[in-house]
């Protein structure tokens, strides 16, 4: 086995290297393919209802609450931790926000306009989530209590807090502006198109910037048409999406929020020191420590972000269902974890992408939604979802083995 490869070339222009890129992304492509198969399957099983503009719009809207959680969960699992409390934390945030909306602002600020009270509710929700994240980060990062135990305890505590806050009753949170957060659409429809154009322009600017930067450091570039094709393909997807959801009500506000969060956190995970450190810690904690990376500090921030995202998720939850209940968020942590693992995040840490988790999230939602449309009883929905999860992860592992 002599080393046949010769010198180091940093560029990825040759055909074999494109092949390598495709192989290393095989898992992601396989996942997208699985999603498309599921969509077409249900499309035929439901006589096309499944992929109607209305249901297509719903498919994305329904995933947002757990998908926001899975964005943070990717970081948590990649770093080698777990967070079992996020469902109940989001639930608790939703209950508190609903309570603020229903009772507090009435008595405290009787004449305040809706935009002010809604903003205050949102800020309160984010603050509670983040504060809880800070506590987690401190206990897990600095006191080094295992995350499993810490967050399990939190789950119980939060469950108790939800019962205390609601007193066992349902709290309404259906004020128009507040409901807009999870039930609103970009209106008039032209706003959606403008948004698509703006994103496309940004994509192209980023592409040319990247080329400039590589040029500045003396690298040979991939052919221009290749980059243009890639970027154009992405832009076309966005236009297609906007065009189709505009057939129904327009771009869904919660999906917009989710997209912004997913893009920001993808960026953080790839292009900031914090992101790199998370992956290094999960990949080899000792090597990371000996590279001068503070395990405590980075662990702390992972859980702070997780808490913040649980806050976002809780706000969307309250607005989506329109009230806060004692059952809010129960079991959502497991949906978030499943989405990550389905999306290729390794339970051993070090590997995983936010994009993957989004696809994983969409697969879970697509299944549940499809079975609902087919009027499958909820008992059987659970059975089918469970079976699909195991099969999906098995197929994924088999694919990985073939590659190695």
């Amino acid at each position, binding site marked *: 086995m002599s080393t046949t490869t010769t*010198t180091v070339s*940093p560029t990825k222009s040759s055909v074999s290297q494109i092949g390598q890129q495709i192989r290393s992304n095989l898992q992601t492509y396989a996942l997208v393919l699985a999603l498309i198969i599921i969509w077409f399957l249900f499309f035929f099983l439901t006589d096309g209802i499944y992929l109607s503009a209305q249901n297509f719009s719903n498919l994305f809207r329904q995933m947002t609450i757990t998908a926001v959680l899975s964005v943070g969960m990717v970081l948590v699992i990649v770093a080698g931790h777990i967070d079992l409390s996020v469902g109940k934390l989001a639930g608790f945030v939703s209950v508190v926000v609903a309570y603020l909306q229903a009772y507090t602002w009435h008595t405290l600020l009787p004449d305040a306009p809706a935009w002010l009270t809604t903003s205050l509710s949102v800020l309160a929700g984010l603050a509670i989530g983040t504060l809880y994240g800070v506590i987690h980060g401190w206990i897990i990062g600095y006191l080094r209590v295992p995350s499993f135990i810490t967050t399990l305890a939190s789950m119980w505590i939060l469950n108790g807090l939800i019962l205390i806050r609601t007193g066992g009753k349902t709290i309404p949170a259906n004020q128009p502006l507040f409901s807009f957060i999870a039930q609103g659409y970009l209106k008039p429809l032209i706003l959606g198109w403008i948004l698509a154009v703006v994103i496309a322009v940004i994509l192209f600017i980023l592409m040319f910037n990247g080329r400039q930067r590589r040029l500045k450091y003396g690298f040979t570039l991939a052919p221009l048409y290749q980059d243009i094709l890639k970027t154009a393909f992405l832009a076309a997807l966005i236009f297609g999406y906007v065009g189709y959801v505009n057939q129904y009500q327009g771009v869904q506000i919660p999906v917009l929020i989710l997209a912004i969060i997913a893009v920001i956190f993808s960026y953080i995970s790839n292009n900031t020191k914090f992101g790199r450190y998370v992956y290094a810690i999960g990949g080899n904690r000792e090597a*990371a420590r000996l590279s*001068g990376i503070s395990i405590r500090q980075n662990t702390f921030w992972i859980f702070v972000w997780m808490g913040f995202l649980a806050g976002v998720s809780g706000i969307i939850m309250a607005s989506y269902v329109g009230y806060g209940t004692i059952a809010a968020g129960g079991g959502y942590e497991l949906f978030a974890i499943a989405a990550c693992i389905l999306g290729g995040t390794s339970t051993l840490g070090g590997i995983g992408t936010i994009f993957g988790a989004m696809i994983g999230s969409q697969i879970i939602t697509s299944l549940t939604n499809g079975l609902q449309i087919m009027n499958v009883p909820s008992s059987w929905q659970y059975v089918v979802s469970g079976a699909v999860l195991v099969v999906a992860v098995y197929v994924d592992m088999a694919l990985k083995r073939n590659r190695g």
Partner: protein
Amino acid sequence: MDNNVILEFKNVTKKFPGITALDDVSFSIRRGEIHGICGENGAGKSTLMKILAGVYPWGSYEGQVIYNGNELKLVDRAIHQATQEGIAIVYQELTLVPSITVGENIYLGKEPVEFGVINWEKLYADTQQVLEKYQLDVPPRSIVRHLGVGKMQMTEIAKALAENAQVLILDEPTSALAEAEIDQLMEILRGLKQHGVTCIYISHKLEEFFKITDSVTVLRDGKTVLTKPTKQLNLETLVSSMVGREMKERFPKGNRKPGEVILEVEDLHALDPGDPDYESVKGVSFNLRRGEILGIAGLMGSGRTELVMTLFGEYGKITGGTIKMQGREIKIGSARDAMKNGISLVPEDRKQHGLVLIQSILRNISLANLDQFATLLQINDAAELKASTDFARSLAIKASNLNAPVDSLSGGNQQKVVISKWLMSQPKVLIMDDPTRGIDVGTKYEIYKIMNDLSEKGIAIIMISSELEEVLGMSDRVMVMREDQSVGTLDIAEATEEKIMALATGVATQPIPER
């Protein structure tokens, strides 16, 4: 068929996609001999052994392996079958369960059972018997984790022998052992020979072949270059047949000119992180000059690694003594502190401590140095790639591109990645803990040249090594450690293996003055 031959490879060829790992390999091994196999990394040694051990089953390779006169056909549960046939392998990385006892490990998976219950008395009695038979000095009831590397290896050997192995394969058994332990291992192997066990001995340390083996096979690029009785060989022929060219010197001559003192360590004391009642550094003093290579020698367990890890801020708490960098006293409490003060460390165990194996070469090189390319909100990935590429090129890392995962590289290239990473941090003092462990001769030579280059550029290097030859071949001065203390420093002109060993073992009758 010659009854004296226990194992014969006949035209064995093994292909992987795009690569021929073994190309028409033929040679035979005589019953009861110790047969050395050597070759550079990637020469095909491991592939050959994996065929013997059943990792690559019969049919996945071409050619024949004749064992005791019949063709060896390992098919179903091939690994298990190999064991039953009496072929056992002791891997380079030990495969014991650390949290259970020696006896439990030896009989793991084949515990003596009565009515579904393990008969512990029999298990330990059997263990004792095996250990005594082969003169292995390990307490059967010790927890493996508490043993030293040498004893762990004895346990591993006992485990192989408990299966009544006829052929014992030892894959780089000495890479983690100190000199004294190596001698002990050699004794054990001679004992095995008395009991008629055939040993296949794989090593990068060529001198060992002359100490212990009866014959040697050299592999290069998947082909057998020679099989000869050891008596007919010498070190030069062995090296040149391995690398395929004349290798005049194993240690390149540098043009080092040590300058002024850069690092001064004065009576350093530090606690053991696992056991705060115990001092793991008990008074170490030395100084280091710009552009110098200071070798640290000592037996396994003499506290060498503990010392350098302490200097790097990642071991126990420093309780006494001073560290001065360029005349200024510095405090080191973490790797970050050490790096800020210009100290870098290439750790002993590159897989555990040096690399994130699942990540790319690029990410590994830049990991410790992201501050050079990053603001809080962004990493300049083009600058990162440029700088990493420059280091990868200057160290001649062999890889298709920098996005290849680091675990796809050979050991030597992995080590170069670790070195690149630490060079990028622009150290004044580079600590290298056993930098050539498990690396083939050719790549070792390259790493020595890199070390010379660095010291010529003014970087001060501290090198720990378990191989005395390497210490003598590369250092300007040699500091010897014993029982967590520095016991003497020798100028290279006066240093000999005997003097170093005398200091390291404490047998020296006359104290050698500190320099």
